[in-house]
């Protein structure tokens, strides 16, 4: 399993200067074709971990390696020299979609082709019929082909997130990292986006690592869940086992908000009593 891992994170640590480490010796292995949820409160390090995998941020000097399909993305706090090239295999779906609003949906999706086409063609914005057809198929598979010629900024949040997924599909990424893809969406759009991620995982065998605020989505769409707390992996196992009791043990007494989904975990974390409780838990851990 280790040999053929889609993603392998070994002993990754990161501190941003403060006394608290953002990531503490994180170890994580994801097999090809898995769909894994990454849960945790705000500030637990979910985003930071995903951004390290994509090579946007380098770990602390001397911290371990991150491999995607055997390629070293970073090692010992140094991002690989060929990181731009390596990123083509890693689709990234952002909480705020990160589309270029003034360009059309088609152009945003075509951007997935950039690493594969010659530079002169990409700089004059020339894409072949075949490349456009591939973008069209990707848009069709997420149900946004009728919006192809609209400016991305005119789309709703749910539609924009589907454009971002189509872009990752055109990239032909073997693994998709989704950083809180549904945190900015209404419940129905959130459901649609999660369904799409689950479908491309199931039908195309693309490995998916998705960070989520709410445990209910993890239980519903992912077999396996990895839980982070204060930069440490505190749980890695079947999502079904994440019962209220277990979560209470991981996150303190007031974890109900994380469960029913009506309130986000931010509210819990902003509660001084809970924050203090977590601090005590970390000190005793």
């Amino acid at each position, binding site marked *: 399993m280790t040999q053929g891992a889609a993603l392998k994170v070994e002993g990754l640590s990161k501190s941003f200067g403060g006394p608290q480490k953002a990531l503490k010796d994180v170890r994580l292995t994801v097999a090809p074709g898995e769909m894994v949820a990454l849960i945790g409160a705000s500030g637990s390090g979910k985003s930071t971990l995903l951004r390290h995998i994509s090579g946007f941020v380098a770990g602390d000097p001397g911290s371990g390696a991150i491999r995607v399909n055997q390629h070293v993305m970073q090692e010992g706090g140094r991002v690989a020299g060929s990181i*731009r090239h390596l990123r083509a295999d*890693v689709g*990234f779906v952002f909480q705020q979609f*990160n589309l*270029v609003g*003034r*360009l059309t949906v088609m152009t945003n999706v075509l951007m997935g082709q*950039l690493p594969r086409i010659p*530079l002169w063609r990409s*700089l004059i914005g020339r894409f072949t019929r075949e490349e456009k057809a591939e973008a069209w198929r990707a848009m069709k598979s997420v149900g946004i082909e009728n919006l192809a010629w609209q400016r991305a900024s005119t789309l709703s949040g749910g539609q924009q997130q589907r454009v971002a997924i189509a872009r990752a599909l055109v990239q032909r990424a073997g693994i998709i990292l989704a950083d809180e893809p549904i945190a900015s969406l209404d419940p129905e759009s959130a459901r649609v986006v999660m369904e799409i991620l689950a479908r491309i995982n199931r039908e195309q065998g693309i490995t998916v690592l998705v960070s989520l605020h709410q445990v209910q989505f993890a239980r519903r769409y992912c077999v396996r869940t990895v839980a982070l707390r204060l930069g440490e992996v505190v749980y890695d196992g079947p999502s079904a086992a994440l019962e209220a009791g277990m979560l209470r043990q991981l996150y303190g007494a007031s974890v109900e908000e994380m469960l029913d989904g009506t309130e986000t975990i931010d509210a819990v974390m902003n509660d001084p009593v809970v924050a203090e409780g977590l601090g005590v838990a970390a000190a005793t851990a």
Partner: protein
Amino acid sequence: MAHAVPIPPGALEPPGAGKRTLAQAFGWAVFVLILAWAWKGADVRPMDLVKDSGNMAQFLTEFFPPDFREWRSYLREMVVTVHIAVWGTVLAIVCAVPFGLLSSSNIVPWWVYQPVRRLMDAARAINEMVFAMLFVVAVGLGPFAGVLALWIHTTGTLAKLFSEAVEAIDPRPVEGVRATGASALEEVFYGVIPQVMPLWISYSLYRFESNVRSASVVGMVGAGGIGVILYEVIRGFEYAQTCAVMLIIITFVSTIDIVSSRIRKQFI
């Protein structure tokens, strides 16, 4: 929540409120001192306006009626003036795009943007007229010297405006492009330029307007255009002709200002 807590009366006055008025008074005193000093230095003599009002009225009457007998040559030179402005601006835009990107702190490291910024400062600090005088020596009398002068000065100005637009972009779309595995250049073309395009177009049109104004004077130092004629008629005390030339300049510049600001509004 907090709305039930009564606010103590003293709390309405923020601490340090008195200090601010003192600092303001000091600021005003410095400002008045500078004005008084500059009055001496600039040799401002308002009484002369009253004393010599008769002479000035006499001088003014010599401008009217304007003498349009040579209008063909005025118009021809005015069109040349616009040509100077067009080429000076277009060459400047072409150069300001790379220089603007290279002086943006969110695109390149400091050891690139600091020297490039200083270079652009230098290009901007020297007035077009000075460059025009130098280029007349270098490439000879005529419009081309004017084009070169506007080109250098406008490159400095536009590069600064362009880089300010680049530094104000939303970084998230750029990161989105980066995530696809795009190269640094593709990141700029797909993530940065679409965001700044409306502002860049607007700034460029604005500089074109102001370059038509500048081009009408570079001729005074021999760099072509209507300025040459203006210089000759003023030197020859031909005030009726001077008036005609000035009216043509006003008409052209105003028309271009109006049309260009209409176009600019479409992009903001």
